[in-house]
């Protein structure tokens, strides 16, 4: 495949899409599919055929359109109309209105902040391209970055570009991506691996799943570019088996890319060869930790091991391995297409670019959003999220999943970047964001996350395996108003032990929900301490 051939495919596809007067796009991500968007798609196709509109209207399935709360969503282009809560019965009505006055009662206002305040990069093609057609991806400029890189850049120039972009790992810890790439590139070894972490086990998080479902080729292109940069010839996508649609679409993407010569021997006629395989995870939260993930890919029980050595030196099968998250790879093609400086224009001093969040909980506009780094939590919750529904009061926003913490109202003006969230005792995490209203008890919230960590502990080290259970039990004592001052002291000591002594990052972060609620909602704990000594003990 040469650049000219790629352009020809792109032009042909664009022509095909321009031929029709209307493109009707139906969200076919897991969220909308669960509310029958596949039936809407089928009804649209049947109705278009029946009306003999095949040459005028193109019906296609696309990835996530973002506003999951209003799903299933249908988008009409080029008019830029979005319809919410569609049913197959609505199909004739929207076809009747094509080109005329839109169906007001189903229309979503696209000028609201939910749409205008976002900035998309990783989600650029979500809701635009058909995730199961490589031609559609190519029509948006897909794989152009790969060809450019393979024909014009040396591996070290690719790494320089990524370093210039300031991109940091989107899996949560925020390690500089370019630095990681250069470490793997410099590691010695004939055989190197590139691994995509698509485990995503946090409660309330669905960013990686949505990206894979909406735009699998973008992730694949990012991986191939990474493999070229670090000198890997084999890649693995580690994705949990609970994501069947993501798995199916990614496998389709691999087959299509192989057919077009973007994967396999001598990619695009260059000496570079690279293969990608999918590895299914059985759904263990700990397998999102990179050393446990690699164990699992090797076919062992997924348990973290001590670092160093880091995977960059000794990873999969003892070979140098690059492990990046789905969203990190999804950012790569645009960085190489537009240059690192272009990417670095967005965001803050230390956190560049945009970040995808799964906004859920007690907020009006639940869904998938991508925002520039540095936006405040308040803007996310109130402007983009539309605030707390049912006239309730905002209480806290939980970021970073079980490893993160709860942030109260008075700190909502904090900018969203790696350092600021960490300073609050929370973290970016992979991007789950759960809004909590005044009906929730913060001890319940902390206990919910503790239960998750306790159930998901791999059992290897004592502080995490037993400590999380004891933390969970202690929180139960508070809930039942049986806790004493002594229990509060033990709770704090134990949090510190689990945080400082656990073997892997997941254990070390497990007490964060308790620590942050103790910090910002301490009065709720104090209010539940047993006031008087029971008679039998007196």
């Amino acid at each position, binding site marked *: 495949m040469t650049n000219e051939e790629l352009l020809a495919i792109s032009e042909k596809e664009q022509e095909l899409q321009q031929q029709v007067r209307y493109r009707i796009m139906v969200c076919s991500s897991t969220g909308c599919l669960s509310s029958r968007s596949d039936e809407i798609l089928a009804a649209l196709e049947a109705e278009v055929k029946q009306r003999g509109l095949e040459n005028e209207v193109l019906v296609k399935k696309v990835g996530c359109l973002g506003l999951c709360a209003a799903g299933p969503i249908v988008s009409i282009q080029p008019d830029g109309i979005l319809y919410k809560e569609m049913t197959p019965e609505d199909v004739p009505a929207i076809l009747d209105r094509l080109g005329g006055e839109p169906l007001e009662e189903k229309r979503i206002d696209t000028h609201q902040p939910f749409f205008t305040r976002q900035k998309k990069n990783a989600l650029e093609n979500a809701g635009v391209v058909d995730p199961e057609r490589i031609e559609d991806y190519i029509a948006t400029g897909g794989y152009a970055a790969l060809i450019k890189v393979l024909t014009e850049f040396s591996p070290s120039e690719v790494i320089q570009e990524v370093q210039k972009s300031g991109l940091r790992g989107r899996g949560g810890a925020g390690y500089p991506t370019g630095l990681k790439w250069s470490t793997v590139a410099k590691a010695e070894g004939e055989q190197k691996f590139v691994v995509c972490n698509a485990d995503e086990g946090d409660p309330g998080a669905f960013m990686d799943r949505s990206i894979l479902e909406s735009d699998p080729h973008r992730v694949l292109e990012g991986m191939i570019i990474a493999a070229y940069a670090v000198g890997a010839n084999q890649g693995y996508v580690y994705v949990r088996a609970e994501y069947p649609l993501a798995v199916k679409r990614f496998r389709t993407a691999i087959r299509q890319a192989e057919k077009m010569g973007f994967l396999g021997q001598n990619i695009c006629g260059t000496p570079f060869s690279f293969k990608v395989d999918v590895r299914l995870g059985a759904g*263990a939260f700990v397998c999102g930790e990179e050393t446990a993930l690699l164990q699992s890919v090797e076919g062992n*029980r997924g*348990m973290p*091991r*001590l670092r160093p050595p880091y995977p960059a030196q000794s990873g999969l099968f003892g070979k140098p391995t690059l492990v990046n998250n789905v969203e990190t790879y999804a950012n790569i093609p645009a960085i190489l297409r537009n240059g690192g400086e272009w990417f670095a224009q967005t965001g803050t001093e230390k956190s560049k670019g945009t970040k995808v969040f799964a906004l859920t909980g007690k907020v009006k506009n639940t869904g998938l959003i991508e925002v520039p780094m540095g936006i405040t939590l308040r803007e996310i919750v109130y402007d983009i999220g539309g605030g707390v529904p049912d006239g309730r009061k905002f209480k806290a926003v939980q970021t970073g999943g079980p490893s993160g913490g709860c942030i109260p109202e008075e700190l909502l003006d904090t900018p969203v970047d790696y350092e600021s969230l960490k300073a609050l005792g929370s973290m970016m995490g992979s991007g789950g964001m759960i809004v909590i209203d005044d009906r929730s008890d913060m001890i319940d919230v902390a206990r919910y996350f503790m239960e998750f960590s*306790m*159930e*998901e*502990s*791999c*059992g*290897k*080290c*004592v*502080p995490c*395996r*037993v*400590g*999380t*259970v*004891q933390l969970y*039990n202690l929180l139960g004592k508070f809930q039942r108003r049986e806790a004493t001052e002594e229990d509060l002291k*033990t709770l704090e*000591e*134990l949090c510190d*032990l689990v945080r*400082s*002594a*656990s*073997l892997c990052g997941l254990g070390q972060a497990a007490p964060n929900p308790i620590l942050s609620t103790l910090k910002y909602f301490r009065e709720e704990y104090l209010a539940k301490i047993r006031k008087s000594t029971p008679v039998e003990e007196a």
Partner: protein
Amino acid sequence: MMTPGTAVKTFTMDGKPFSATEEETILDVARENGIDIPTLCHLEGILPTGQCRLCMVEIQGSGRLVPACATKPEEGMDIITDNPRLRNYRKMIVELLFSERNHICAVCVSNGHCELQSVAQRLGVNHVRFAYLHPRFMLDGSHPKYEVDHNRCILCGRCVRVCEEIEGAHTRDLRNRGIRTMVITDFDTPWGESPTCTGCGKCVHVCPTGALAEKGKSVAEMAKRRHFLPYLAMRRRGGK
């Protein structure tokens, strides 16, 4: 000043200067010099995993805790092996282990020569501040010579590692998560029916507690013999 890349590294431990070869861990140097750092999962001869977290030491300046059994000292490192914080953590870890399963010494075959018991005594654990969890596990007596009582297991992984690394059988592994994690034989078959177990008994003798024991032995007789391990490990590496 030493030049970078020298094979021997110098550092301080509890304020005193020490040196270590590139192969040696903090624990090796400590033991060489009579500094007591408690461990439960570590055993000379098998690979360290740093999972019991008892041997945590503090790196001065960073406040970071690292497992002494699996961390190699770096040039100029300032290591603290004992202070009130570490002592409290170690006690808490032992208390957590006691709270987890049934560790009632009076009715255990390893009473008197149990590593958990002796570590607890050394650290001065005289009460457990956590609720007892006591999940119920079965006892597997299907093997003709040995028995396993999962209620006494502290999941140190020594038996798993010795079986894999020294005996080369990999009969043992783990199943389940959290406190339901347990050591299994093959694909969770009764020990007596295991087609891969060679009956060598190494797992029994490296077990720190009474979880693995020889059948028919009295408490006084069930002392564990581990002197074979460093020797076998050395022979496997091709040493003489």
